[in-house]
């Protein structure tokens, strides 16, 4: 190229460059709406989530002076009276601002049972005179509830203080800091187990969609186009019905008095109804059904492009049909297979609605616990940390996929 520009007159080069710039600008304008949309709907929320998972200013905003006073405390025994008096004054202010509930939630997360303690103390201190608190605040606090006399309570308040904290990530992987600041296992192991189960279920669902989808796509790719289109309608049918309707249909089928159980009982195959709903089984079943099109569509698109002559060539050269399939057809259909598997796997890892409806307690996946922390326990920071971990997990899996299968081996239709 360099030698070509040398042969170009400066004016021509300028013109050519201007043309290229113009074309780039035009191309850019085409994607501006999408870019704006993505920044608002995708980049910004994810950035907020990542930020939120380490940023929690609630306690620091509510009781800044108490936290400042607590800095000198050794961590053993009851803090000085000055600290207690400052805290009593803060409690009174919060009781009148109606913000004491927020503090109660925050402390309660670290130390269960502190919610009611905090609220009742706030109520007790609401109408007390300021001078009285300044003189006698420490005693009043201890009188309101004995737990204000425990070191653990104050440690919990102190540890909730920092605006930036890694504690939510530690919690997400079932770890915590002990009194000396060492990272140790938590007593209750919830999240690692849940991540593992989510991965396992996603793998099973991916495997099932392959087992069901590959032969179907193969058959459709080799059928006449009218038959293939007819079958395609059945594959796409789930896409055209509401997700909620499809999931409720599974409930109608699988529940204790549902179609499956009553049929089996009618034939006398079983005496008592089977527990088919609200467990892992029903979650996997319903999700396999819902995600099957994501496997079939890319597979079909790739297989449709594989001419029958490849298999015929292999067979004419002496290969058995099975050998020809594994050595020739499978590698050629791999782009579709890996695209389908990646789609199904990533979608199912973050799936929410189906496990929530048919999963019961057994079939819960990681996204259900994230929703729980956002809607019920109101712990958005932990939800954000769990969500960020899920994102990292998916990125790692994608990297592994790229490393071993290669994304250039991917064909999404």
């Amino acid at each position, binding site marked *: 190229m360099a030698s070509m520009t040398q042969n170009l007159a400066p004016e021509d080069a300028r013109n050519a460059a201007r043309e290229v710039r113009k074309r780039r600008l035009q191309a850019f304008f085409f994607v501006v709406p999408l870019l704006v949309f993505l920044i608002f709907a995708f980049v910004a929320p994810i950035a907020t989530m990542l930020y939120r998972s380490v940023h929690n200013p609630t306690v620091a905003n509510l009781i800044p002076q108490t936290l400042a006073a607590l800095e000198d405390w050794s961590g053993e025994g009851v803090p000085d009276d000055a600290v207690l008096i400052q805290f009593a004054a803060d409690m009174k202010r919060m009781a009148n601002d109606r913000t004491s509930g927020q503090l109660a939630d925050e402390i309660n997360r670290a130390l269960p049972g502190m919610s009611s303690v905090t609220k009742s103390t706030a109520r007790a201190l609401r109408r007390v005179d300021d001078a009285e608190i300044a003189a006698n605040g420490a005693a009043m606090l201890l009188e309101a509830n004995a737990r204000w006399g425990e070191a653990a309570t104050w440690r919990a308040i102190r540890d909730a203080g920092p605006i930036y904290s890694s504690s939510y990530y530690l919690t997400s992987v079932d770890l915590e800091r002990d009194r000396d600041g060492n990272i140790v296992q938590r007593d209750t192991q919830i999240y690692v187990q849940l991540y593992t189960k989510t991965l396992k279920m996603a793998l099973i669902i991916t495997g099932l969609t392959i087992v069901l989808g590959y032969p179907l796509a193969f058959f459709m790719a080799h059928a006449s186009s009218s038959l293939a289109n007819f079958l395609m309608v059945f594959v796409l049918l789930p896409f055209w019905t509401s997700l909620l309707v499809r999931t409720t249909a599974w409930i109608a089928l699988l529940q204790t008095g549902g179609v499956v159980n009553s049929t089996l009982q009618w034939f006398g195959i079983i005496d008592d109804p089977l527990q088919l709903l609200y467990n892992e089984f029903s979650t996997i079943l319903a999700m396999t059904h819902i995600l099957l099109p994501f496997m079939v569509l890319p597979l079909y698109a790739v297989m449709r492009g594989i*001419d029958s*002559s*490849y298999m*015929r*060539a*292999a*067979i*004419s*050269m*002496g*290969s*058995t*049909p099975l*050998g*020809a399939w594994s*050595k*020739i057809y499978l*590698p*050629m259909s791999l782009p579709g297979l890996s695209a389908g598997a990646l789609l199904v796997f990533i979608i199912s890892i973050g799936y929410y609605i189906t496990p929530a409806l048919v999963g019961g307690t057994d079939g819960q996946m990681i996204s259900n616990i994230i929703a729980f922390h956002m809607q019920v326990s109101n712990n958005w920071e932990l939800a954000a940390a769990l969500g960020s971990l899920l994102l990292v997990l998916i990125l790692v899996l994608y990297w592994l996929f790229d490393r071993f299968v290669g994304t250039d081996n991917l064909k999404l239709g």
Partner: protein
Amino acid sequence: MKDLGSETFLRFDNVKKSYDQKNLVVKGFDMDVKEGEFITLLGPSGSGKTTVLMMLAGFESVTSGDIAIGGKSINRTAPNKRNIGMVFQNYALFPHMTVAENLAYPLSVRKMPKAEIKERVAQYLALVELSEFGDRRPGQLSGGQKQRVALARAMIFQPSLILMDEPLGALDKNLREQMQFEITRLHKQIGFTVIYVTHDQTEALSMSDRIAVFNDGVVQQCAPPSELYERPVNAFVADFIGENNFVAGQVTQIKDGIAQVKTDAGLIAARAAEGLADGAACRVSIRPEKLFIHPTDHAHDNALTVTFNTRIYVGDFIRYYFKMPDGTDIIVKVLNDLSAPEFGDGAQAQLLSLTHDCTAFPAG
């Protein structure tokens, strides 16, 4: 041809094929092929030639009749046990394997030792002059190179029979001629038997030992190229192979296989084709290069009086268009030399021909 007997290597015996249980696509195909022959199945698309090839390869079942190789029926032999090499129009090179791996595939399926495979692959790459390309992927090759790899792959396991299904259909004209030469060279050098399917008659004429012309599921004529061109047995073959003029007329007399035909433009003595009846309407076929414009030094038996219409300059020759009295066109090819005559608009001309270059077919 049935009397070749012991020499026969491949035999089709009244082979029929129906896909829909109602209509026959191949209506009773008979042919005996000798070892080392180059046979072309030629015909318009949908004439059944590819179906015959697919039945031979084993990818389509035989509805009735028998296909035998070396005297043994292969009707029930699985396609992977037939030991038949095959070349496809789209080459069917495995895109995820290198050229060398493609060539090694039929050998590794046969569990040949690695060292021997390597040696054989190198030998066949050299044979098709692609020794430098063993490590390339098919996607990095040109059309002609792909075709050569496909050929080498079909030959490398030394099958006694190689089938080619329009192998040059995807190539441009120059490359096609080059590859025709290449295939002929390999055929002569190695001596395998070839069944070649094409709809391109030039390809068929220049390469084959014998050509079977298909139409509508029936072989119209099976003969060496020159016989097919010079002595077509029916009007379809005469029309399908090469260019031809058809002159309508009436048979006035048939004697010793020579028919006297009365046409609007004059009398023609022509070889009588099978089925031609005295007094019946007929069509006389005369090739454009076998017609000469008066005056000429060529000997001639027949003369037709026609009107000059136009002439088209092609390059190495000139095409003259004349009108018969009934308005149909008659074309004459004249070599582009000093003898090419000039005509004024609507001038009369005499077209001369020899009796053995004219064939009279029954009309219709």
